[in-house]
């Protein structure tokens, strides 16, 4: 694996790093060394604001995933096997869908003549259809849908390892469910929550198809800027520099999370329990 990852990941990454110091806007060619690409990125408030927004979006998406994914993951873990079966399949299914298809489905749901609008108009909540697509919330909803399974599965895998006896004990001590959650379940589930949070965050900040198709270009995220820079402008050095900024800041975030939770999360050592 080491060889595979070094060959197929580190080498391209080094190539990427090297290209990000090239001057000009060539495609796959060029020589020289300059910090221009980075200077240009950080000196233009447009790019830095997109970077910041991308991180804020990623954070909000991860937070939403946590809030709605945790109860789901918890209930999945506590369900009897027979009831769990189909629900697990529903959770896994979005992971298997090609993005092109998912986006088509969302156009039907959120479009001006789509599901949500017809429902709201029929119920009389809004007088005439509203525009939901091409807005930031729409992009975030779709990102949540795409990455929620990662959160649910991560939470589920730690909860299954927390003995239900602990909860019963707490209940016997007349703790209500909220207290049980706050004092027992959540602290024990922290490693799983962090893994899920981490995955969702990293996946959201590097997303590019969703912001492009659902955001209609008015919602800009760094991932789609990188994609455009390389695929439309064929400007490899600048795209490489932006990709590297994203890579390093994403790593920094992951590292910060890991530091918070100690080394035991990713190593999977120590059985997740505290």
């Amino acid at each position, binding site marked *: *694996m080491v060889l*595979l*990852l070094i060959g*197929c*990941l580190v*080498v*391209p*990454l080094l*190539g*990427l790093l090297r290209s990000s110091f090239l001057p000009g806007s060539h495609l*796959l060619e060029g020589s020289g060394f300059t910090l221009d690409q980075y200077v240009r990125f950080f000196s233009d408030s447009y790019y830095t604001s997109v970077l910041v927004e991308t991180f804020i979006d990623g954070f909000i998406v991860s937070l939403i995933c946590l809030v*709605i994914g945790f*109860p*789901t993951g918890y*209930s999945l873990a506590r369900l009897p*096997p027979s009831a*769990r*079966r189909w629900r697990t*399949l529903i959770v896994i299914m*979005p*992971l*298997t*869908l*090609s993005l*092109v*298809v*998912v986006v*088509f*489905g*969302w156009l*039907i*749901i959120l479009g001006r003549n*789509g599901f949500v609008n017809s429902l709201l108009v029929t119920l009389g909540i809004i007088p005439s259809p509203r525009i939901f697509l091409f807005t930031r919330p729409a992009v975030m*909803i779709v990102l949540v*849908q795409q990455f*929620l*399974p990662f959160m*649910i*599965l991560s939470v589920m*895998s730690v909860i299954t*390892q927390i003995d239900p006896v602990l909860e019963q004990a707490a209940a016997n001590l*007349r*703790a*209500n*469910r*909220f207290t049980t*959650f706050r004092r027992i379940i959540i602290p024990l589930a922290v490693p799983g929550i962090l893994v899920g949070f981490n995955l969702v965050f*990293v996946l959201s900040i*590097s997303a*590019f198809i969703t912001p492009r198709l659902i955001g209609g270009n008015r919602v800009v995220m760094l*991932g789609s800027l*990188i994609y455009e820079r*390389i695929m439309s402008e064929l400007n490899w050095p600048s*795209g490489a520099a932006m990709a590297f900024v994203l*890579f390093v800041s994403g*790593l920094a975030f992951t590292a910060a999370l890991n530091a918070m939770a100690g*080394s035991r999360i990713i*190593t*999977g*050592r120590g059985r997740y329990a505290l």
Partner: protein
Amino acid sequence: MRSDLIDNAMAVSGACIRCLVYTILALPAVLVIVSSFTSGETMNFPPAGFSLRWYQKVWENDLFMSALWTSTYVAVLVALVALVIGFASAFAINRFSFPGKAFLQGLAFSPLIVPAVVLGIGLLQLFAGLGLTRTIYPLLLGHLVLAIPYVMRTILASLALQQRVLEEAAMNLRATPLQVIRRITLPLILPGLLSAAIFAFVTSFGNVTVSAFLTYGGKVTLPVQIFAYVDTSYDPLVAAVSSIMILVTLSVILTIERLIGAERLA
């Protein structure tokens, strides 16, 4: 009294959230499948009438059928290789301590952060330099790199779960290390291995961006074919192909689920 109220409130809100979550997760797929059965010329919801004509068109379309075959073939290979590599390295990370271990772990998760287009072009450059772009290897290796983080995460979690007492007992009974792995460790973490295989399969099966750069010798994977198709033609054929993709992945999951039971997945 107060605690009852809170309990009830939590139970109700929990049920609402779960309901919402399952709807959100399933809805897009359901819509696509429903619209693929339209008898009309356009992709619309609700569909105009019911027919299987678009499925018949897919079946008659050599491009889509051969792309389906290429995708399936590559995804199965990727799943198998990813399992072997993922198990070996997860085992090493979980059971031994060695210099560079933290680096290895970080490395294994980093493909998630690299934008796919960058990975695609990087690999293209690398393999062009090696003169390998006419072969299946770039596609295989590219998908492998993408699948590794998921596979590692899943296998690491099951290894961490597993009691080492049994392995130690076997060692005490003078079993060789290989015997221990084959007879004890592997069977115990089988569910984890199989869900890792699912992740590897679906990662490879659904990828567009990296594949777009690494297609070889006129062979194209299904998602790339779909992407190119919708660029010039937009009809329910796409919904039908997508439904077939859902069907293939679902049948892979169901097969594995039959083997081990969904409750043990993930």
